[in-house]
């Protein structure tokens, strides 16, 4: 058991860069900020690779099961003797895998934005926020205590707010950043209450202890947690589903997905990092981290499955109609995350049924690479064309050869064509779905077809359709933009062959998986058909797509308008919360509560005026009052004092 304390360095390096660039960025590191950021990231990537090698190959396995090693633990804030928030680092298959994913993708984004963000005057702050984000994401992965997860969860939300709102002078960017933070914040509320429930009933906040206590069916905590119920569902279901809502908010699942498309306002490398590989995946990671507890409670698992499946299907449908390439990619991310969620949802703990768990994490692993590649490619295209809309792009394959090839590889990977990474992970998910739940399998299949359709629709309309009308174009950007594309393209191809199943499984034991080709004919066949339809529609400039769209009529319009979900949210906030709750309360405060105080003041003034009337200066009144007084006193004394 070699000492793993050097892992503490991995999150601390980005934090260090954040502090350095944040405080001194503007003055000293005006231009060199990029190199510092990328250098520190490079160091932490190397460290994480070393840690992965050491953990997976050297001493992670103990009689066949991967151990959870707590490298470092320190009580940060103790509420009561056994319930306390303590900061620590946990090394186990999922966290190491995520370490690799986050650090490498973040490195690629850092290198890419060297070229992409060259001209920006707040260059240093951009890198500061980027390293803050990486730090909080790494912290989230390595956390030992649920509250520690919550802490880094909030930090991730805040840094994504800062990054999305980077072009702060654009009001739309500010609104998008606000919306992102508020929606995720709303989900975090569910997460917080989930933690409180688990913490209170489980008696501790430490994840390891919680899993240990809540999975042993005869443990005291488990029994009183399942018996105590509120509005029908047991406390366990409440806790877990609330935590899932927290995760769903961050991973933009169905009800809370509205912030993801708007988050495209931020710079493209940011969306590549945040909305492709890291932040949106945090929800999946959270469910995976607490999976043993989730598996004890079938109802919350079914919630996960159905929300995942529905958002996968829902996003795929909308993606087919979007014209802004970044919005298309955003919805495709949402759909892929939906895949991962329902893969987790349908899986059980233990050997064979744990396939879903392994498949979803494998998909997470591969998806991170090719989705960030797609985003970076889109970034390069936008950098060239200076607009997001598909219409004014086309025929760029000659102008941007490398981006074109990389983009093609990524599209093939995401569509799930055999040699590429996407195929392997999607196959695993489809097999797992096939074994456990036929309905989900059908939906998954159809969404897979839709995915390949909209991906290739995007590909053809960018690189093929009409000849590019661009007069001046300044090449494909420096090597700093091309290099990450190439590396990621390579990963998108190779990563599929990584024997994922014998590293990460639901119970730590290696799992033998085999790709049976017969089973995979159906999905691959469907994807090929979808690709050919897309090619037919979009390869050459023709009006069939608009004709086709007209046929669908209202369905097309609805999908284009994102099924009016945004408008629904806006309606709720603008029409209901502000005028019907905010206004009356503000009014009530000014008039009723304040009014009451002023009323007090006024009444005292009025009373004092009345009393003044008595001093009317008329002698006779005084004598009358005088006599009245005598009379009362005498009656009083005589009758009471007898």
């Amino acid at each position, binding site marked *: 058991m070699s000492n793993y304390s050097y892992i503490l360095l991995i999150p601390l390096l980005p934090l260090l860069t954040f502090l350095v660039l944040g405080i001194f960025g503007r003055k000293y590191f005006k231009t060199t900020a990029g190199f510092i950021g990328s250098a520190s990231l490079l160091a932490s990537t190397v460290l994480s690779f070393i840690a992965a090698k050491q953990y997976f190959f050297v001493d992670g396995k103990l009689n066949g099961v991967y151990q959870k090693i707590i490298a470092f633990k320190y009580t940060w804030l103790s509420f009561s003797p056994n319930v306390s928030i303590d900061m620590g680092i946990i090394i186990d298959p999922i966290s190491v895998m995520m370490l690799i994913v986050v650090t490498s993708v973040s490195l690629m984004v850092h290198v890419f934005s060297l070229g992409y963000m060259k001209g920006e005057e707040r260059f240093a702050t951009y890198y500061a926020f980027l390293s803050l984000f990486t730090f909080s994401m790494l912290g989230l992965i390595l956390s030992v205590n649920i509250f520690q997860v919550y802490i880094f969860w909030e930090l991730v939300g805040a840094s994504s707010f800062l990054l999305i709102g980077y072009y702060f002078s654009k009001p739309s960017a500010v609104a998008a950043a606000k919306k992102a933070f508020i929606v995720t914040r709303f989900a975090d509320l569910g997460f917080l209450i989930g933690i409180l429930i688990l913490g209170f009933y489980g008696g501790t906040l430490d994840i390891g202890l919680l899993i240990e206590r809540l999975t042993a069916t005869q443990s005291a905590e488990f029994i009183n947690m399942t018996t105590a119920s509120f509005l029908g569902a047991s406390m366990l279901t409440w806790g877990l589903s609330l935590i899932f809502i927290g995760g769903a908010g961050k991973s933009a699942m169905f009800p809370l997905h509205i912030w993801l498309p708007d988050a495209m306002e931020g710079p493209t490398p940011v969306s590549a990092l945040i909305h492709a590989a890291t932040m949106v995946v945090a929800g999946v990671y959270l469910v995976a981290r607490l999976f043993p507890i989730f598996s004890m409670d079938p109802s919350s698992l079914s919630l996960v499955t159905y929300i995942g499946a529905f958002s996968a299907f829902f996003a795929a449908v909308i993606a087919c109609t979007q014209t802004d390439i970044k919005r298309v990619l955003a919805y495709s991310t949402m759909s892929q995350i939906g895949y991962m969620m329902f893969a987790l949802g349908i899986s059980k703990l233990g050997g064979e049924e744990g396939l879903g768990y392994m498949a979803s994490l494998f998909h997470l692993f591969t998806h991170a690479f090719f989705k960030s590649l797609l985003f970076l490619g889109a970034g390069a295209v936008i950098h060239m064309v200076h607009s997001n809309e598909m219409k004014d792009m086309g025929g760029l394959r000659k102008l941007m050869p490398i981006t074109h090839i990389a983009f093609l590889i990524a599209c093939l990977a995401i569509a799930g064509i055999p040699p590429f990474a996407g195929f392997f992970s999607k196959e695993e998910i489809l097999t797992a779905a096939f074994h456990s739940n036929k309905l989900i399998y059908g939906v998954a299949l159809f969404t897979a077809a839709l995915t390949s359709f909209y991906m290739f629709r995007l590909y053809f309309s960018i690189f093929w359709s009409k000849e590019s009308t661009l007069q001046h174009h300044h090449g494909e950007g420096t090597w700093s933009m091309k290099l990450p594309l190439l590396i990621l393209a390579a990963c998108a191809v190779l990563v599929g062959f990584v024997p994922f199943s014998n590293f990460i499984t639901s119970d730590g034991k290696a799992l033998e998986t085999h790709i049976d080709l017969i089973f995979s004919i159906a999905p691959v066949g469907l994807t090929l058909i979808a690709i050919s339809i897309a090619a037919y529609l979009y390869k050459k400039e023709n009006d069939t797509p608009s004709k086709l769209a007209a046929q669908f009529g209202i369905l097309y319009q609805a999908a284009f308008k994102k099924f009016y979900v945004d408008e629904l949210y806006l309606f709720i906030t603008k029409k209901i919360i502000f005028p019907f709750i905010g206004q009356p309360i503000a009014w009530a405060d000014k008039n009723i509560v304040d009014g009451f105080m002023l009323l007090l003041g006024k009444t005292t003034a009025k009373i004092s005026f009345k009393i003044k009337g008595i001093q009317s200066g008329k002698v*006779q009144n005084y004598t009358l009052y005088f*006599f009245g007084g005598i009379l009362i006193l005498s009656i009083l004394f005589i009758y009471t004092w007898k």
Partner: protein
Amino acid sequence: MPILIVSTALFFIGMFGLFTRRNMITMLMAIELMLNSVNINFVAFNKYLFPDKLNGLFFTLFIIAIAAAEAAVAIAIIINLYRSHTSIDVEDASEMKF
């Protein structure tokens, strides 16, 4: 015993006068009435209850003396008031209002 009733009646007549009269002089008269009723009481008590001592009588004597002094001072004030207010109606002299 009936004397007390007479004196109380006189007292309350004087008081009634004091309340209703708007003219200061008539108020003065009312006060005189009240003082007289008090004197009657003193004399009656002294005569019927404590004949051996003469306290009651002395009291009455002193009251009469004081009443005289008081009437004199009151009239001086009234005259002065009359000069400044040209009317001795009690309503007008209400500068001491709020």
